[in-house]
């Protein structure tokens, strides 16, 4: 310890130039100045960084209470009343009100415009700064979708603040009215719609559809896009079928009751419920249902493509309307056979509809591509080939149990 102190004293003495160590001389002053200069030089970047970090503009400031965080956007087509009047697009936005004193939980703004300046017009209608980073759902009226969605979507997918997980839906009626839906049990319709679509995509009835999946399928030459329908009813806003697109145009729809059969053809699912109307008086419900889809394609003699879709179902019978006992294997097998036959029949109906519409929304083309060389595939009119091809559906059902009553 003593040695260390001695070394330190010696070093201090050396630094002082071997001069007087007791008083403050000119050399010390210079050294101090040099040290201060060096300290200033080193701290300058830090100070500069701190100062620069505060140099944001007012426009980039986000105060939560001053924001209108749009959760749903809706688009309607309004026909011009006079013959020479242009059609206009009505844009409706819905955003939650973050104010404990406010009497409503959501605010709706709507503006009609025949140019594409609706966002500016909407911004002029509120004291809040409208931001789109929390947008969850976009709803288009069927009349817009029938004319093609690509131009309208372009406005959304180009905006980097709008994520591509934003859900996409269609509505038969007026979207503005849909978003103004009021019910005591549904205080925030925007959040309700988001949760409804989320839940339904998990529980079998619709495939997950968002800006990404829609654009992905639109730009794939082996599949056409889809979008779910949302319509208001007396009690709630309900899921009302699946819209089928040919490129970006809405050409048809799968009715709400047939949606599970479409999903079986479209993809696989892990949990769902399926109610099958076997006869007029007999209904059976399968729960905890899992499904796998397998597409087999080949070319027949003459080069014509044909396909077989194998739907493998696995579930539990929880409801059977129309009293029957399933105590024997024979009876159980008979019921399974009847369910399978019905599933195949319903799936075939959906397929025939898509073939009639020339809309390959289940992506048979994605599988059929491998039957062709690149040049042959490019020259092929896939829609026509799809419309004319023979597609078989084969279903398999495994039932874990038939409920707690025999």
């Amino acid at each position: 310890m003593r040695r260390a102190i001695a070394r330190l004293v010696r070093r201090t003495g050396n630094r002082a130039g071997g001069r007087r160590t007791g008083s403050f001389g000119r050399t010390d002053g210079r050294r101090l100045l040099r040290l201060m200069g060096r300290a200033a030089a080193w701290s300058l970047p830090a100070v500069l960084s701190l100062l620069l970090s505060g140099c944001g503009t007012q426009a980039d400031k986000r105060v939560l209470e001053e924001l209108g965080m749009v959760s749903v956007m809706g688009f309607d087509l309004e026909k011009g009343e006079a013959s020479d009047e242009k059609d206009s697009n009505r844009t409706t936005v819905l955003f939650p009100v973050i104010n404990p004193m406010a009497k409503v939980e959501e605010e709706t703004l709507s503006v009609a415009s025949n140019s594409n300046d609706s966002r500016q017009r909407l911004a002029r209608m509120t004291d809040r700064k409208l931001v789109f980073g929390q947008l969850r759902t976009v709803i288009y009226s069927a009349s817009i979708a029938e004319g093609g969605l690509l131009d309208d979507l372009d406005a959304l997918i180009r905006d980097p603040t709008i994520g591509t997980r934003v859900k996409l839906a269609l509505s038969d009626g007026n979207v503005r009215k849909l978003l103004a839906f009021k019910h005591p049990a549904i205080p925030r319709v925007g959040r309700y719609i988001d949760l409804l679509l989320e839940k339904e995509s998990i529980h079998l009835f619709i495939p997950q559809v968002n800006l990404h999946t829609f654009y992905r399928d639109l730009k794939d030459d082996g599949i056409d896009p889809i979008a779910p329908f949302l319509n208001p009813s007396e009690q709630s806003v309900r899921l009302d079928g699946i819209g089928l697109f040919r490129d970006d145009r809405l050409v048809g729809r799968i009715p709400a009751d047939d949606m599970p059969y479409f999903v079986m053809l479209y993809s696989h699912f892990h949990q769902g419920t399926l109610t099958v109307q076997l006869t007029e008086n007999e209904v059976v419900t399968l729960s905890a249902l899992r499904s796998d889809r397998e597409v087999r394609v080949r070319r027949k003699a003459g080069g014509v493509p044909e396909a077989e879709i194998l739907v493998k179902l696995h579930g539990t019978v929880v409801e059977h309307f129309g009293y029957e006992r399933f105590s024997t294997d024979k009876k159980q097998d008979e019921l399974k056979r009847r369910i399978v036959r019905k599933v195949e029949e319903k799936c075939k109906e959906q397929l025939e509809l898509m073939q009639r519409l020339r809309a390959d929304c289940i992506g048979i083309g994605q599988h059929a591509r491998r039957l062709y060389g690149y040049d042959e595939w490019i020259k092929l009119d896939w829609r026509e080939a799809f419309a004319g091809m023979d597609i078989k559906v084969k279903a398999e059902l495994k039932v874990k149990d038939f409920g707690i009553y025999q």
Partner: protein
Amino acid sequence: MNEKLNPFHIAILIHVVQVGVTVFSLPRLCAVYYGTNGWIWIVIIGIAVTANIALIHAAVKMGGGRPLPEMLGLFLPKPVSGILQLAIGCMYALSACLTSKQYVLMFELQSFPATNPYVFRAGIDVLILCLVVIGIYNLGKAATIVFFATIPFPFFYLSLLHDVKLVRYTPFFLKDGGHWVEGFFQVFAAFLGFELCLFLVPYVQRGDTRWFYAVYAGNTFSWFIYLALTVLAFGFSSFGQLKDLLFPLLEMAGHLTLPVVERVDTLMFTFFFLMAVMTATAYFWMATELVTYVFPNIRKGWVAAFLIASTYFVSSIPNELSRVSAWLQLMAKLAIGTSFLLPVLLLIGMLAARALGRVKAP
């Protein structure tokens, strides 16, 4: 006093410097220039990059532990080698500044769109200056921290595997693409940064070139990450969609969800700031080294400050993201040319010097 760089740090440094914002557009570049299943070209270009590193390895081996300017001085007249070094230095400095500018403009696509990019860049440049001044050894340590801070992100993409469909890859190979040479330059640019190894010679154990295997290791890791992410992107998005998306991997990141974080893409891109800064810093450091060799009397700190300040103004000329990308592509082409031709020149020159008896054969 001069601590030597550890091979582990070298591998990480090379990887961190290589990975820049170009990685986000790699799937698009492969789709646009090479067509269906264009990801295959990542394999081919990776081989070309490894060959390029092998070329540098051979040149360094032949130099026998001499730094780059000393090697150039053996067979080139001093003014010529000086001009060559200054030219390469200026190119690296401009590339560095454009890299940081590209990052800032991309960052402003997502956050703070109304803030003046010059303010951001000034802040970043101050940080870069601090990093350049601390020297390559400390830079290696900083790179290690950056590496461990960012390495989880590529693995987050694995959670998107359930959305990957084999049929989206299509059975067609390299159809509907563009010009493959242009694509080669653009994809190769994503691997740039490995030329840093040419400048590490004075900072490693003299006479031992085994450290070079760390360069191969760092490059192979970047190669693997690029390939994995691009293959994933081709199965996640459709081919037509990939061609339209400016930054497909950033769009994919938008689909990542963590239990507590909703928009992982924004978080990821903010973290990527560290990668962009490291890339820019390494290039500025190389430029500083080259200029200091020519003017040995000027302190490195001042050289770095001068280079950063001057390129700040030069790179302010292109204002739009597309213009900055175009400038960067030009710089990348020059850098690729340099990375191939400089070791070739060194090899030929050293062979000539050996033939003339200026250098002893090993």
